[in-house]
């Protein structure tokens, strides 16, 4: 079965959501900016239904949610623990502060898709892993 057939539902949903879909060397690449988190969740849910273990190694899907702007407040959504705030964008960077789970912090800028510069209400400023921040 071709990738186009196997992932038809995902491709259709991704295209409808304005994502770029390309096939290269037997890998399906889906990327783009989603207007909200629900769109991203929906695409990952569909992907998870087709390949529950994400095991087939034939999809690379990078969906960014573009609903947070600099200056807005974002929520820390770690499992339980505090979120480290670091001096630079990387886990090898020293920790300069912490934000508690569910704490609201101010987004200063998006350095890249992985690391956002934030400031806590206590005035600690540094880089946090974007995966743990939500609008």
């Amino acid at each position, binding site marked *: 079965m071709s990738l186009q057939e196997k992932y038809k539902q995902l491709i259709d949903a991704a295209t409808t959501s304005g994502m770029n879909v*390309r096939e*290269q060397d037997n*890998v399906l*690449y889906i990327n783009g900016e989603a207007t909200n988190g629900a769109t991203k969740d929906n695409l*990952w849910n569909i992907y*998870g239904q087709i390949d529950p*273990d*994400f*095991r087939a*190694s034939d999809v*690379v*899907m*990078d969906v*960014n949610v573009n609903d947070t702007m600099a200056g807005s407040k974002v929520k820390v959504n770690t499992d339980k623990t505090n979120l480290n705030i670091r001096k630079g964008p*990387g*886990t*090898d960077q020293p920790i300069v502060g912490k934000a508690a789970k569910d704490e609201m912090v101010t987004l200063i800028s998006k350095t890249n*898709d*992985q*690391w956002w510069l934030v400031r806590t209400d206590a005035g600690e400023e540094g880089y946090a*892993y974007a*995966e743990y921040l939500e609008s």
Partner: protein
Amino acid sequence: MKLTRILASLILALTLFFVSCGPKDNDIKASVENLIQKENNMTGITATVNDGVVTLSGECENEADKAKCTELAQSVKGVKSVTNNCTVMAMPVQVSPDDALRQGVMDATKDHPGVSATVNGGVVTLTGNISRNKLPMLMQSINGLQPKQVLNQLTIK
């Protein structure tokens, strides 16, 4: 002598015939191609015209460019219809360099202590253990690094 004269008049007639109906299509062809070439990144699009019916071929960078070619061709005087056979170029997929991927997977796996990741030629290989409820988050983080491929060899618990 007679034959030469007949041939000469035949050639003249044929020339007149082509001159009378040829230029119109040729003019359309030139207008369509010029108009399309004026647009950014839209070189290499050719038009064949047959009695006002335009067929476009070539490569467009994206669907929007392709649609614009059709629009431009339709706007040329004398064009009856446009068939757009242009293909849309497949842009090469952007893959992060291995160094960036290594830094990225280190960050992404930090909170997944049972997971190891190696990077080689853009391919990220995940080994170790992970619980099923944490798998989607890890996969989203890794996929967001622009790898070429993700080989998931994790044992899912």
